[in-house]
């Protein structure tokens, strides 16, 4: 259902297909993956399209193999991605850690489903920690983008490759089963042959007179060398915090309650803000578009002006911790958590807003 053209053009397209096409637009020519619902349309799309444009689609035998193929391809200098959903991403944790330790760029997409365990295939946000605190063992972290529409899935995925290159780090696009399967109008970024950024570290055939041999490695027996790697990575995260932290705000300029939500939850909260008068409370939604780096500063700023913050997430209290770390006691933080595929309706959130307002003594209808 995608249409490729020279100019941006709106198509009515599913989140999965927009993600796949976003990858292609971002310059991805190598895809290694293993099927899992609710994101099967991505590998299917890639298997259809990549070979046509000289790219490589390879179905790995497992997620463990997939991440290690991605590792190999990234080591070889390719723009490479894989996509999966919760259990599959869990299986990739060791490999992610290797990629972070070896400072290789790549793009991962997680269309989160209900968990733990086999769970179900409905929308959930319960891999928030897996994305922001995960990446296996060690101190490495995934730069994590949280699109909330099919358009953003497309754009963020395309843009993720640049970010991955800039910080020589994994970028994780964190969405969910609804965003994956829903259809919306989307302006597609035209495909073009992107010049690969210089990758002086990459392995492959070379001329010894032009460069020394390259080694991709995450083994550092010497404590100081290992620590230096961690400090270098940390420094990149600090820089990313300054350069790419991204969020959107929506609602009253003089809010009484701040809503915090990302992804599909943020869309519910948008509806709530649009119906704020029903509760008689002035609301402002802060919607992170990156959760690592986290928009600590704007949340902290508003926290000092509002009477309370309400966090809405489709998990039992993961995202709320980052909000709490940002708010740091400046105002009470309450949580509306649903899980297992259940989502609060805007009505449910409004109800909770009224409750919060009561707790903190804001007059609400």
């Amino acid at each position, binding site marked *: 259902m995608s249409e490729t053209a020279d100019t941006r053009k709106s198509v*009515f397209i599913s989140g999965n297909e927009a993600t796949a096409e976003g990858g292609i637009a971002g310059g991805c020519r190598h895809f290694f993956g293993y099927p899992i619902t609710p994101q099967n349309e991505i590998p299917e799309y890639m298997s259809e399209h990549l070979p046509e444009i000289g790219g490589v689609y390879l179905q790995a035998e497992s997620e463990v193999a997939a991440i290690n193929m991605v590792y190999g391809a990234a080591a070889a200098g390719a723009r490479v991605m894989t996509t999966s959903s919760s259990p599959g991403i869990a299986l990739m944790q060791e490999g992610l850690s290797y990629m972070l330790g070896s400072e290789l760029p790549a793009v991962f997409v997680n269309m989160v489903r209900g968990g733990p365990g086999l769970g179900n295939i409905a929308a959930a946000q319960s891999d928030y920690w897996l994305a922001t605190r995960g990446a296996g063992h060690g101190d490495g972290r995934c730069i994590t983008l949280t699109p909330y529409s099919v358009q953003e899935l497309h754009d963020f995925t395309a843009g993720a490759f640049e970010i991955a290159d800039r910080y020589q780090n994994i970028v994780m696009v964190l969405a969910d089963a609804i965003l994956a*399967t829903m259809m*919306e109008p989307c302006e597609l970024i035209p495909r073009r042959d992107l010049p690969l950024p210089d990758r002086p570290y990459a392995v492959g055939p070379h001329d010894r007179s032009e460069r020394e041999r390259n080694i991709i490695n995450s083994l550092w027996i010497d404590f100081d060398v290992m620590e230096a790697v961690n400090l270098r990575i940390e420094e990149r995260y600090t820089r990313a915090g300054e350069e790419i932290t991204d969020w959107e705000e929506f609602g009253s300029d003089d809010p009484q309650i701040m809503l915090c939500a990302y992804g599909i939850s943020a869309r*519910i909260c948008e*509806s709530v803000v649009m119906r704020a008068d029903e509760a008689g409370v002035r609301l402002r939604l802060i919607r992170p578009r990156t959760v690592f780096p986290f928009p600590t500063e704007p949340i902290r700023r508003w926290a000092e002006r509002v009477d309370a913050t309400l966090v809405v997430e489709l998990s039992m209290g993961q995202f709320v911790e980052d909000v709490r770390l940002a708010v740091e006691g400046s105002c009470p933080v309450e949580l509306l958590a649903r899980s297992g595929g259940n989502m609060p309706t805007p*009505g449910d959130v409004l109800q909770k807003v009224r409750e919060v307002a009561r707790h903190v003594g804001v007059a609400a209808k």
Partner: protein
Amino acid sequence: MREELFMAGIGGQGVNLAGQFIGRAGMDAGLNVSWVPIYSPEVRGGSSTCTIVLTDRRVASPTSEHPTSMVLMDPTAARRFAANLTTGGLLVINSSLIEETPKVDDCRLLKVPANDIAAEIGNDRTVNMALIGAWAAGTEVLTAEDVARSLREMLPERHHVHMPDNERALERGAEIARETR
């Protein structure tokens, strides 16, 4: 303006596809739209539902608590979902299969004998078309022609032979809506 259309039926009735046509038609008509499916785990059979939002503001939440209109295609769907309709909403039911009309206070009811219409036309695949034709004429958010146009755009060339049948079904549905008014 914000129309929240909920559609439900059983696998094979083309619920999702019909919803996508409406979504696309809405987009072409300059509206902000979204289409959200909820699948059941079985590959075949089982219930199939989707929600389409059509609005001139932000779509924001793409799901709906109390849809402003519903298209229900089989008895189970009618039993399970009809009560969720918003007060004064439009309820389109496939009266060929749904014998017991769901009791919903204060709604605009359109009974479309969609299977019979499809049988008349001689094309089993047009069941969903009659129903969304009725929905279009019933809500006036889109016209049956809008939907037909999106159909033409979205269907692969090789399926275009069915277009006349589809258009007839859409039109028959729309007629029923106009008659009911």
